[in-house]
């Protein structure tokens, strides 16, 4: 457990790495969400158009 | 000297809608080009695009067979623009407003006093524009047109805010302008009776 504690700095170091993970995941999640939303919007619109024809 | 204004395969898409596609026209000195269509169909966008205020999706506008994008200054030196929003300052007097335009453009040989007289605004010279009626303000804008020495007139809905007499006056002025070798591009949703070689472009 000594390796993880890193002297007195463990909390600082680990929080930085955790934050990095959080932000990378957050960015990817947002990107995926937006892609899904754009895709679905187009799909709904096209289906509606098709039904009218 | 004769001039030529032409458009080649103009296409404009605004936001969701394609306003017009592959639209072409040609206009020579002495001619009148009328852009027709219902309200809100893209007439204003088209006339703004021809005047170089909107960038087109595709196509080129030519002035004297040279793309206007390559000679913006020359092209704009040859035109005046009249639209619903007159571009006149309500806080300034008629003379101050026209004096500003006077400093930017080539001047015609017309006598300003005669022009004011003819447009029926001679008495209003010292008043600030805000105190004039909408119709009178349109007449001031017309005076600006007449006092500039340019071959090409752009008029976007020139008949709004004008009474019968005013409408008649605009038609007369355009007729005269075309008869003396000028040319005019006009966007209008009403019928226009002007005695000049006319080309019509209809937008769906």
């Amino acid at each position: 457990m000594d390796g993880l504690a890193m002297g007195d700095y463990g909390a600082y170091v680990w929080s930085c790495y955790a934050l990095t993970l959080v932000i990378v995941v957050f960015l990817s999640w947002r990107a995926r969400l937006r892609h899904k939303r754009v895709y679905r919007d187009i799909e709904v619109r096209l289906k509606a158009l098709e039904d009218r024809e | 000297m004769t001039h030529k204004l032409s458009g080649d395969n103009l296409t404009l898409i605004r936001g969701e809608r394609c306003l017009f596609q592959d639209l072409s026209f040609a206009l020579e000195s002495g001619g009148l080009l009328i852009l027709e269509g219902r309200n809100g169909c893209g007439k204003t966008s088209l006339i703004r695009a021809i005047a170089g205020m909107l960038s087109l999706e595709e196509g080129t506008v030519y002035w004297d067979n040279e793309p206007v994008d390559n000679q913006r200054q020359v092209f704009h030196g040859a035109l005046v623009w009249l639209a619903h929003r007159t571009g006149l300052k309500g806080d300034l007097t008629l003379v101050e407003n026209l004096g500003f335009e006077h400093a930017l453009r080539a001047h015609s040989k017309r006598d300003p006093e005669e022009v004011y007289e003819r447009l029926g605004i001679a008495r209003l010279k010292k008043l600030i524009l805000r105190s004039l009626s909408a119709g009178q303000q349109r007449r001031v804008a017309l005076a600006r047109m007449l006092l500039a020495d340019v071959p090409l007139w752009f008029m976007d809905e020139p008949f709004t805010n004008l009474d019968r007499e005013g409408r008649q006056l605009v038609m007369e002025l355009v007729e005269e302008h075309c008869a003396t070798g000028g040319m005019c591009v006009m966007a209008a949703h009403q019928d226009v009776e002007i005695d000049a070689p006319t080309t019509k472009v209809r937008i769906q």
Partner: protein
Amino acid sequence: MSEAPREIPGILAGLVATAKRDLLLAWKRPGDVLNPLFFFAMVCTLFPLAVGPSAEQLEFSGPGVLWVAALLATLLSLNSLFITDFEDGSLDQLLVSPQPLPILVLGKTLAHWLTSGLPLVFVSPILAITYRMPLSVVGVMMLTLALGTISLSLLGSIGAALTVGLHRGTALLSLLILPLAMPIMILGANAVSLAASNDIYSTGIWALGAYAIASLSLAPYATAAALRISNE
């Protein structure tokens, strides 16, 4: 090509005419000029009320407070730079004018500086004295404000041109311009502070001058491009 009679006035005429018209408009509507000045004075009054009237503190923070207030006042006045022109159609007329647009824009910006920046320069000594600034430093402060507000007007005109015609233009303008304006304030306020502590302050003045010249030569082009885009 015998087109002798058609002569378009030179670019200097265009510059002077636009500046003159805007000055005339400001003369007829003095409120637009006075409001930012009152705002400037008000912010400078708020500060001592918030942190206390101790002479030492005021002397120390005076340059910074005056500069921040000047920056905010300029920002306030920038809002209306192109809005009225956009609304009444004058902007269209400028865009289809035979004069080069950057020159006309420069004329407008010049008028803006004469009606917003320059009055600030002349009002600032009164407020500076209430902050117990020595007279020798007041001169330096006026010089930095004069140079700095030129750059602020020019830089701000880009932001005003980008946001003209947008619904939430006012808030957006501050968001766009403040980060860009930060270096001007850093240079100006710190040059005054240095002068107040009898240090060498000329670096700040030279840098402000260089900034003003650079923005004089570049900003009008950016503003012109932005105006053409915004008015589409």
